[in-house]
């Protein structure tokens, strides 16, 4: 835990996970200190639209409460995302660890973006403009799961066996209707 480096095995495991999710690992940008990527949250402002970059950001550290990772492409985290932490990506978000904080994939409007995690227990999930949370009292699964948009809902399914799909509760606009 804590500091992690991307070894050859890690990279291979990562490539396989991404492949299953329909992605190809283009390049790995290793950051010595991922904290450098952490920005102070802007007061309620949506992420500024920027041209998506092609590189995936690899964070080799646990993202802790109060820290925020923002990236204009895919984000891969080798570590946990703890409650109170936020990960926002224009592309996909893959967490090789427990995702317990808030993740927002496809923040610039990409509804095909996914959020995948070894342990998917987010406080809240957002993909494009859709916001979801786990149903209250929902027992967390111990296998890797992938969240994506189906229809107007975020649906979570096992990354290997797609039959065990379950819909998240809608949060915000949809709930008010």
């Amino acid at each position: 835990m804590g500091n992690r480096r991307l070894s050859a095995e890690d990279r291979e495991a990562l490539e396989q996970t991404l492949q299953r999710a329909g992605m190809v690992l283009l390049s790995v940008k290793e950051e010595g200190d991922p904290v450098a990527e952490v920005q102070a949250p802007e007061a309620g402002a949506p992420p500024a639209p920027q041209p998506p970059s092609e590189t995936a950001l690899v964070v080799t550290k646990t993202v802790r409460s109060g820290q925020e990772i923002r990236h204009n492409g895919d984000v891969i985290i080798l570590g946990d995302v703890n409650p109170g932490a936020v990960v926002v990506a224009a592309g996909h978000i893959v967490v090789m660890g427990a995702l317990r904080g808030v993740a927002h994939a496809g923040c610039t409007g990409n509804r095909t973006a996914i959020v995948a995690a070894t342990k998917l227990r987010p406080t809240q999930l957002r993909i494009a403009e859709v916001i979801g949370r786990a149903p209250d009292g929902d027992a967390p699964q111990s296998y890797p799961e992938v969240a994506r948009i189906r229809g107007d809902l975020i649906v979570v399914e096992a990354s290997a066996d797609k039959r065990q799909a379950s819909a998240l509760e809608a949060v915000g606009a949809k709930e008010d209707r």
Partner: protein
Amino acid sequence: MGQVIVVTSGKGGVGKTTTTANLGTALAQLGNRVVLVDADIGLRNLDVVMGLENRIVYDLVDVVEGNARLKQALIKDKRNENLYLLAAAQTREKKDVTAEQMKNLTEQLAREFDFVLLDCPAGIEDGFKNAIAGAQKAIIVANPEVSSVRDADRVIGLWDAQDGDRSPAMLIVNRVRPRMVARGDMLEIDDMLEMLAVDLLGVVPEDDHIIVSTNRGEPAVYSRDSKAGKAFQNIARRLMGEAVPIMDLEAEESLWSRFKRIVGLGRS
């Protein structure tokens, strides 16, 4: 050069001051030269817990402002001659001290003492930033409850983000009630460690002795039958590099309650 260790938590009321007082006393009992620094300027407590309130003449702010020499401001403990206290100013504010001043102060203290323990104020604002400025090690105190763990996580993140030569944070889980943990009403220590991803320095049980000793100004490590005091003594030995196994609170508890049940005193 001695070690400069900050005792911090983010959340208030989890036992930072109690930990600083007991750990410092235990380290001094083991023959180390120890100074406790109360970094909670404006809300000082450590002097009260140590029973040294009436001996304060000069405080930390007097030293950094040059009104007193460091030697004049150090208060010798009434029981242990290896132990000293540098009190916080009560009539001043956190912003009266800068991080740079704190760094210089702790450097000076580290030359004279084996251990410099900084009692950090709650929160993550200026007082916290000043307290961690000169520390190489951090002890995070957390209670086995969700809000405390959340704040501990935040503080560990801030500690990691500091530059300079710093060791990874160490965790003390304080105020553990083994029976509640066994019933599943309290967070498991393993779950806390999994989330916080830091090394466990010690586990301290909830103990009525602490309240008594705090009010009396006599750290619990002096009390022979205080379990918390024993836990702090173990932590002190671990800080000195000794491998002391973590106390198995659950085993002790169940044995004790079983004994009570046998003799007909048991409530459970």
